[in-house]
């Protein structure tokens, strides 16, 4: 490697070496700027986790129960007798129901996490503060 040296007073700078270093550092900087993910904006859905309780007190107020069902084209939501095709319809229905006794979300084994999150989001949007997710009891 041939260094072109230039004198500045008493100091000697290896100009070519410094230029290479700066080039490398800039390449590293560009690499990290392009690959770094400062995080997609994230949200969070708070829920309590309650174990299945078959012997729950009948005297207690019954919460609204949403069952998420897996289907080929997405998830369906069952509330009582009604089956809803999407989260928007679920939100609209939940908004008409009393919120005092809370809401419990359960899911069929084949329902995806996407559908569970959609049900929790609908419950949150409909104003249910007391939300629970109940995993199926059977392993």
């Amino acid at each position, binding site marked *: 490697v041939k260094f072109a040296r230039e004198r500045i007073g008493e100091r000697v700078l290896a100009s070519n070496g*410094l230029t290479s*270093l*700066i080039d490398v*550092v*800039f390449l*590293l*900087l560009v690499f*990290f*700027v392009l*690959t*770094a*993910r400062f*995080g*997609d*904006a*994230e*949200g*969070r*859905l*708070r*829920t*309590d*986790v*309650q*174990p299945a309780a078959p012997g729950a007190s009948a005297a207690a107020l019954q919460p609204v129960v949403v069952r*998420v069902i*897996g289907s080929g084209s*997405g*998830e369906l939501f069952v509330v009582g007798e009604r089956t809803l095709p*999407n*989260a*928007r319809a679920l939100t609209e229905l939940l908004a008409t129901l009393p919120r005092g006794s809370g809401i419990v979300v359960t*899911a*069929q*084994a*084949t*329902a*995806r*996490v*996407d*559908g*569970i*999150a*959609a049900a*929790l*989001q609908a419950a*949150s949007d409909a104003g249910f503060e007391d939300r629970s*997710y109940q*995993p*199926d009891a059977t*392993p």
Partner: protein
Amino acid sequence: MIDVVLQLVIFFLFTTRMGEIVRSAADLPRQPGEQDRLEPTDLVLTVARDGRLSLGGVEVTIAGLPDRLRALAAETGRAPLELRADRTLPAAAIDPVLRAVSTAEFREVRFATFADAPGGPP
């Protein structure tokens, strides 16, 4: 100038790595989350697409999860648990995890979501 650039490189090196350690990559559900944004919690449980679990970046098994959670609770208290579950996982994959969480007497779980990403369920 070169000092500043080097500092930036070191910053990116550290922030990139740290983010991976604690919040392992997962394709989260596309939902906006709660309107009053919840603060991130230090207790992060990730369920990857292949079903592997990691708690705070350390791989755990479902069998060992309750004990690990109890140990963490003894150290730091029962903070809310952030669940970062891949959006495509079936409930059958996360129900055992949540039963284990419940066994360890953790009650509050926060499902992490991607708030701005498109492609959520209709």
